[in-house]
């Protein structure tokens, strides 16, 4: 145990230098996924036939292929047709596009779960459809989606580790480097796993707090 602690004390700082990169990857990707996912869900529910079809095809493609393949395609494949990203941007785009497909499905379910009488009541007062969606339906849908969305956010935090495969020096990449320098792979990967565990536990706690904070009786099923 003390051997591991010595190992951690020596190498943790180097691994944690990758933390800003990991967190930036994660925040940019899930934020992009949030807005784009919402747009996709919107298209699938309220859009015309074309918008519905495009969004549906998008969701099926990105849910049906591995994220690693998508990232390699974006980083290594797209340059062949003149679209070049640096590794960090390519990883953000890949993770963001992928999570948006999943988030879209969660948003779609949540938007559809808002009782239709809510829209009717808003329109009956003189709200336009758009105003009713934004002021009445969306705030309820977002509360309802929060538990699923939290799962997705935590999942994506772990998925940022795939960025190491295209050379982004986030925490997994740094751990791998330490492993090959010290040949103490056991300690190395226990250490980096602990780092992820602390990160995901912190994020889970923050999101649980947000859930309690936004809880309204009668909108979400369970009490905060």
């Amino acid at each position: 145990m003390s051997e591991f602690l010595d190992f951690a004390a020596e190498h943790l700082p180097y691994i944690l230098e990758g933390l800003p990169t990991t967190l930036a990857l994660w925040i940019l990707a899930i934020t992009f996924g949030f807005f784009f996912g919402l747009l996709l869900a919107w298209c699938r529910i309220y859009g015309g036939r074309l918008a519905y079809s495009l969004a549906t095809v998008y969701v099926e493609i990105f849910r049906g292929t591995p994220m690693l393949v998508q990232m390699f395609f974006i980083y290594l494949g797209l340059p062949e047709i003149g679209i070049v990203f640096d590794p960090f941007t390519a990883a953000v785009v890949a993770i963001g596009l992928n999570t948006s497909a999943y988030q879209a499905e969660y948003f779609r379910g949540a938007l559809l779960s808002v009782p239709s009488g809510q829209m009717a009541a808003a329109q009956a007062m003189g709200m336009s459809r758009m105003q009713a969606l934004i002021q009445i339906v969306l705030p309820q849908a977002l509360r309802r989606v929060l538990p699923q969305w939290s799962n997705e956010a935590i999942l994506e935090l772990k998925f940022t580790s795939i960025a190491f495969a295209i050379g982004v020096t986030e925490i997994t990449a740094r751990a791998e480097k330490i492993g090959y320098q010290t040949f103490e792979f056991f300690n190395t990967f226990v250490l980096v796993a602990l780092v992820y565990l602390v990160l995901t536990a912190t994020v889970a706690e923050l999101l649980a707090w947000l859930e309690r904070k936004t809880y309204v009786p009668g909108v979400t099923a369970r009490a905060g």
Partner: protein
Amino acid sequence: MSTVLRVESIVKRYSDHAVLNGVSLELARGEAKVIMGPSGTGKSTLLRCINHLTPPDEGRVFLEGEELTSENINKIRQRLAFVFQDFNLFLHLTVLDNVRIGPRRILGQSKEEATERALTELRRVGLEDRANYYPAQLSGGQQQRASIARALAMDPKVILFDEPTSALDPELTGEVVAVMKQLASEGMTMLVVSHEVAFARSAADKIIFMEGGYIVEEATPEVILRNPRSDRTRGFLKAIGEQEAV
């Protein structure tokens, strides 16, 4: 008396079945009319056609002489309130915010003005002490009174009530009927789909009896409840146990 709401020859079909077969009616300022009739006879559809929540296939609706069109519908609905059978309070908003959102976000009043208005209407329906509760924390009767306050806060010219007590436990209908009676006595123009004979008898100027997508007859509560012209009206009142005498 001046006509506030005029409904002309509303027709509504679902596939090839006509639910409304050309229904016309008028409401004068301050008038309260109650629509009765067997279930499935088009009463609620008529109400929803009047404010175009369900667009009618044919017919026209005028509020204060202005015809409802797809262009002015949102403007007109601000003056043509609707109270739903199952309340449809906005679930994520407190009672106060439910009542305030219309004046604030639709009529564009200042926050202070809208709050003042909302509190006034909540006092009117006896719910000022529930202002900070969420809908799910209220009884059905309280929710319906809150939804009436929400309608009143828009300062409507007419309120349409779609079976406002049908979703309530029997012991809770009284508080809602009391609020509606009070509104009628204060001169609110109201069109009410309801089987609340007690309300109709004491607060309605006219009862409209509907069946099969037609208006069978329209007369004062006195006439309809005591001596209806139509056998169908008589049969319906008998069925709900309200035929008083012949």
